[in-house]
């Protein structure tokens, strides 16, 4: 995969202009997590109305892959029911990014999903990356 393929325009765009960036005043759901290996940190705030994601914001620090994945993920869950949000898996995130990732960058890509799951389930699940690894 060439560098331009890896850093596709959409990834750079979400990195430089992250959607739903920021925090919510009194979020119904808030979750934070970090990837200590690379120092990435993320916080996701969600307001829920009629069991649907009415508003979502994220903030934190991270590499382009981690931030772009978070940005795309927040776009994807807007308006979805919490049950639908729970159905989102790692392949959905990788499809959004549209690139191949090695094991280290996979954790960057999945940090937002992991944090989101912690928020909507209220408890920490396994790493999203581990769901399919039996």
């Amino acid at each position, binding site marked *: 995969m060439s560098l331009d393929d890896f850093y596709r325009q959409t990834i750079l765009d979400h990195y430089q202009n992250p959607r739903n960036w920021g925090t919510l005043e009194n979020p119904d759901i808030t979750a934070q997590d970090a990837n200590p290996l*690379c*120092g*990435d940190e993320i916080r996701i705030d969600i307001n829920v109305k009629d069991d649907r994601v009415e508003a979502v914001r994220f903030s934190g620090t991270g590499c382009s892959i981690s931030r772009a994945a978070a940005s795309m993920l927040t776009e994807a869950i807007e308006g979805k029911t919490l049950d639908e949000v729970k159905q989102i898996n790692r392949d959905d995130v990788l499809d959004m990014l549209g690139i191949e990732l090695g094991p280290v960058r996979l954790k960057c890509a999945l940090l937002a999903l992991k944090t989101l799951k912690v928020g909507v389930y209220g408890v920490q699940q396994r790493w999203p990356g581990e769901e399919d690894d039996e």
Partner: protein
Amino acid sequence: MRALAPERRVDFVAIRKDFPIFQQSAHGKPLIYLDSTATTQKPVQVLEALDHYYRTFNANIHRGVYAIAEEATARYEEVRGKVARLLNARSEHEIVFTRGTTESINLVAYAWGRKNVGPGDVILLTEMEHHSNLVPWQILAAERGAVLRHIPVDGSGRLDLSGLDKLLEGPVKVVSLTHMSNVLGTVNPVAEIARRAHARGAIVVVDAAQSLPHRGVDVRALDCDFLAFSAHKMLGPTGIGGLYGKRALLDATPPFLGGGEMIREVRLEGSTWNETPWKFEAGTMNIADTIAFGTAIDYLERIGFDAIAEHSKGLVRETMRLLGDIPGVTIYGPPAEERGGIVAFTLEDIHAHDVATVLDHEGVAVRAGHHCAMPLHAKLGVAATARASFYVYNLPSDIAVLAEGVRKAKHLFRR
């Protein structure tokens, strides 16, 4: 001792040809390996030593009386002598083989530490340690009720020794520190710290994982009590390294791991220990890799550690010059004259992973992250840095490609 005659020049271009890995490419570009602080590449001589052992005299050591077992034992023990000479130890009995630096420090923390460190005793470390010189002591301190203290790092990436006397007050039992930072490249004044620590009755443990490969080490000049090192960071195989210890200290230290070879006599209800250093080498040791480590030492000594240190310094100067010319690059640590072959840097607020990915596509391998030194990165105020590190197979042309890649990363993320 290992100095070269001044007229002899080392041909580092020819040295590179000894390393088969550089015959391949990465992303269609020649591999430029700038992560030798993590592990070094291996010359063909070391690979052949491994192969030769397995093909011609593979046998367990210290046991069989047949020809190949005696050959294997002799060649294994010969490396102990080589390491002792390399470190300027008083005797080969002061060299214990382990899995590497981490295991060596754990050996001291568990075996020496459990016997000698008690409630309220102080363990003095520094803020620039690799996790391998933090975590074993944290475990010991928690188990024995001891107290951890840390020598701070100043803004220039050097140890701040202004408060050392105060840090050495009270029941300080051990001072354990790195000789050369794996992030900043800073070379620490171990001999001075050892002198002051000994005056307070503490022993001194040195992490030489980086300093031994890059500059060579003289344990008598440092006057350290223990010194830990790894073969794979100095052209040798993974899974082998060692611990130097003063003979009297090793003799007074109980075994770390129990099993075969480390015993003199075993009865069902108890055992007596083998003598130093074998009482610390339980089970079948890493024979092949130890023997190949001996070949790596031969190889490095043919180049000469003074020449290696000078070569590294030249590459560091070139890196600091070329990266320093790029607006937005921040280089951490002291000037080239005071560091080994390591340069950690950041590029604006672009994450080190992104810098490393762009460099990877240029064929350049650098490390990105906290390099197993999270407390140091917290002190530097950055979550992650990119780190370029050098060894004998690197050439100034590598640095030019590195700098070009960093410019490319900057361009990519700013367009």
